[in-house]
């Protein structure tokens, strides 16, 4: 049990690589950087394989049959001894405690394997792709940091630790989208991704705290046990709110309506990043988190319905935009959003295993498509616009073949991976029509049609038709190095075979994938049955099987028809080829080409970068309003107070100057001076005059007395 015991080492391998790059990367040779960073991920992958292999044995033992394996390394937040408590909803105290604990069960096993596996291939691919780029060590340091965060997210045994990984992958996504930070569009896209994700993260943390407030724990095992204990009824309002808040988080991270806008812009990052983070792994974190919280969601049917509807709408919405985009990576980005919508549709109709299965298969073929598109862009000297491509199939044959396989897989052609997972989802969506959402299957079916169309369009525009690039670019076209084509081939093989793990019973398979996941999800049926009387289940009989086959044939037909249409329109596309939608419905084309004007709408309503008339709404509007409030009301009040003070001071100065000093102090002085003027006349200062006056006075007296 070595690997299980030291499971906490798995995230630490890439963390070690990231740390090395942080401190020493600048001084290392490119070869050393590749050796360290790819090496740690390979080690993590091998270690992960070992851990999962040991887990299957461990959980087969009767004493912990189908139990999740938990390894708590130390108490990370709070305390385990009741010293740090918080008040629960019912008024009782609960110990605040989040461990640095690792949980391995079938769900996290799957994520662990494909995150490290696909991650490893993309690391290898990046060695070739980034060979001529600056910031080589920085790129690999970020990639390793991402691997660390993603593994923490996947292996965490509680919501708080999961949130660490959740924020970590968000940070790495930001850093890698903005990898070419000197380009304004890249740094804008990075900011957009980070900010939009914050909205979701707020929902996630509120959801996790709501659960803790209600249930008293952050640990998945505790929460599952409590929720499945039957103490809560279906539709419990607090659980519904918690589930919806968690889903808001999932919407942000997994690019669902209405928070999907960051993902297409995220294609500003280097292509391996688009493949690893924005297609295969990080964006599935939302799916993982919802699947991880399945016990809560099952008790919140309204939340489930929301998840399903949002997922279905996202699927069809993003697919419709993907129909007309010309940037090869943007088509794939919208395809990713659309496929994530499928996954949420599956989760929402209760088919958790089907959703997870689609995550699993999607990781391979979407990573392959992105890496293939990276190879195409590499060959085209950086050109991403499909209007300037064409006829590449003979010039970069390996890329063409592997991308063609991936396209068949995503379009749902049997027996490739996408067929099984997508059909499972469509089938489950159809079955849930009894539950009151009958149009979900129809939406999924339409999306499948569109998926086939836009993927075939991508292939035909890129690899078929007439060469539309400039002569200089055409001259430079070359197949990518082995380090890039190697991962493509491996992923192509996985894209073919991954689906065989989950062949449904109706096709004679055993759906091993679903069985593997049963310990995680199967309790729900039992719990639900224990609480509410089970609804009459349709027997999985023969007539049922016929319906399933019918739907399969329909969806394969849709894939073929979609591909066929694209073949008809684009297979011989020369310069200035017409877009069929633009020809038939120009207004629709404008709307789709401009992505339903969602970004513009957000600019009007939420960011406030655009004004409606003279009114500015959203964040900048709020900013302007508060700026106005500050300048006019707050500062105005301050100024008014100042004005009053000044007026009083002026008055007081005047009083002091004219009344106190003037009348009170200077007044007597002036009076004295006025009196002094006549008085002064008698003061000659000449002794003889005084004497004369004395004599005159004496004479006067004399005369007076003599003549009296």
């Amino acid at each position: 049990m070595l690997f299980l015991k030291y499971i906490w080492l798995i995230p630490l391998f890439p963390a070690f690589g990231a740390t090395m790059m942080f401190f020493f990367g600048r001084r290392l040779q490119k070869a050393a950087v590749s050796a360290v960073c790819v090496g740690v991920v390979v080690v993590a992958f091998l270690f992960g394989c070992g851990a999962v292999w040991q887990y299957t044995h461990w959980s087969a033992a009767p004493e912990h049959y189908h139990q999740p394996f938990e390894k708590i390394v130390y108490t990370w937040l709070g305390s385990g001894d009741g010293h740090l408590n918080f008040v629960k909803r019912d008024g009782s105290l609960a110990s605040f405690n989040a461990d640095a604990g690792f949980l391995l069960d079938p769900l996290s096993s799957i994520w662990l394997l494909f995150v490290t596996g696909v991650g490893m291939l993309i690391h290898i691919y990046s060695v070739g792709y980034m060979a001529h780029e600056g910031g080589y060590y920085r790129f690999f340091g970020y990639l390793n940091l991402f691997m660390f965060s993603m593994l923490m997210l996947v292996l965490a045994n509680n919501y708080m630790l999961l949130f660490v990984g959740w924020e970590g992958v968000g940070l790495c996504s930001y850093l890698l989208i903005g990898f070419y930070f000197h380009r304004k569009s890249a740094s804008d896209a990075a900011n957009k991704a980070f900010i939009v994700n914050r909205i979701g993260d707020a929902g996630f943390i509120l959801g996790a705290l709501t659960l803790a407030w209600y249930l008293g724990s952050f640990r998945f095992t505790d929460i599952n046990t409590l929720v499945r204990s039957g103490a809560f009824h279906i539709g419990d309002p607090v659980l519904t709110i918690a589930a919806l808040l968690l889903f808001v988080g999932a919407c942000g991270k997994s690019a669902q309506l209405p928070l999907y806008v960051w993902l297409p812009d995220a294609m500003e990052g280097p292509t391996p990043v688009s493949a690893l983070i924005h297609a295969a792994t990080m964006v599935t974190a939302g799916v993982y988190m919802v699947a991880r919280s399945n016990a809560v969601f099952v008790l919140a049917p309204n939340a489930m319905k929301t998840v399903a509807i949002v997922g279905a709408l996202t699927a069809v919405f993003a697919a419709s935009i993907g129909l007309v985009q010309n940037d090869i990576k943007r088509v794939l980005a919208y395809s990713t959003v659309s496929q994530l919508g499928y996954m949420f549709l599956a989760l929402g109709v209760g088919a958790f295993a089907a959703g997870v299965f689609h995550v699993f298969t999607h990781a391979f073929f979407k990573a392959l498509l992105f890496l293939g598109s990276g190879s195409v862009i590499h060959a085209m000297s950086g050109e991403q616009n499909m209007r300037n491509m064409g006829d590449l199939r003979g010039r970069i044959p390996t890329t063409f073949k592997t991308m063609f396989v991936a396209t068949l897989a995503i379009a749902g052609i049997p027996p490739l991976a996408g067929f099984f997972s997508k059909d499972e989802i469509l089938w489950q969506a159809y079955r849930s029509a009894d539950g009151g959402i009958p149009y979900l299957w129809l939406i999924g079916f339409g999306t499948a049609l569109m998926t086939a169309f836009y993927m075939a369009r991508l292939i035909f525009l890129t690899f078929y038709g007439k060469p539309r690039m400039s002569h200089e670019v055409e001259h430079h076209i070359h197949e990518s190095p082995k380090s890039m084509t190697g991962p493509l081939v491996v992923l192509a093989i996985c894209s073919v075979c991954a689906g065989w793990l989950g062949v449904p019973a109706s096709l004679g398979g055993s759906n091993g994938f679903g069985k593997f996941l049963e310990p995680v999800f199967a309790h729900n049926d039992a719990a639900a049955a224990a609480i509410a009387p089970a609804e009459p289940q349709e027997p999985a009989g023969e007539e049922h099987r016929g319906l399933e086959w019918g739907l399969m044939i329909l969806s394969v037909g849709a894939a073929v028809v979609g591909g066929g249409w694209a073949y008809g329109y684009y297979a011989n596309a020369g310069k200035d080829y017409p877009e069929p939608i633009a020809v038939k419905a120009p207004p629709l084309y404008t709307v789709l080409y401009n992505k339903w004007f969602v970004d513009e709408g957000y600019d009007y309503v939420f960011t406030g970068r655009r004004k409606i008339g003279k009114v500015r709404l959203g964040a900048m509007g709020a900013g302007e309003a508060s700026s106005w409030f500050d300048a006019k009301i707050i500062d105005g009040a301050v100024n008014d107070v100042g004005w009053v003070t000044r007026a009083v001071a002026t008055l007081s100065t005047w009083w002091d100057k004219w009344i106190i000093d003037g009348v009170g102090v200077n007044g007597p002085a002036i009076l004295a001076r006025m009196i002094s003027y006549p008085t002064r006349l008698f003061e000659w200062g000449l002794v003889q005059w005084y004497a004369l006056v004395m004599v005159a006075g004496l004479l006067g007296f004399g005369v007076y007395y003599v003549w009296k």
Partner: protein
Amino acid sequence: MVEITTFHYLVVAAALFVLGVIGVLTRRNVVIVLMSIELILNAVNLNLVAFSRMWGNLHGQLFAIFIVVDAAAEAAVGLGILIAFFRNKETVNVDEIDLLKW
């Protein structure tokens, strides 16, 4: 020959007094003013001595001696002030001595 009576003395003394007063009032030089004051004092002395003779006692003469002493003291003090003043102002003209003005 007319007998010299008290009246004659008084006339002389009055003339002397008027001369003194005129001297005090008109002369600019302080020394002359002081001398004129001596004239006034001596006019008074003459009066006193005349009345002493008229009454046949010595009271008037006694007073005259007092006044002589007083005049001497006054001359000493007055000339002292004058010299001190001259050192400061370099003048002995009484119309230029107007420091008592405001």
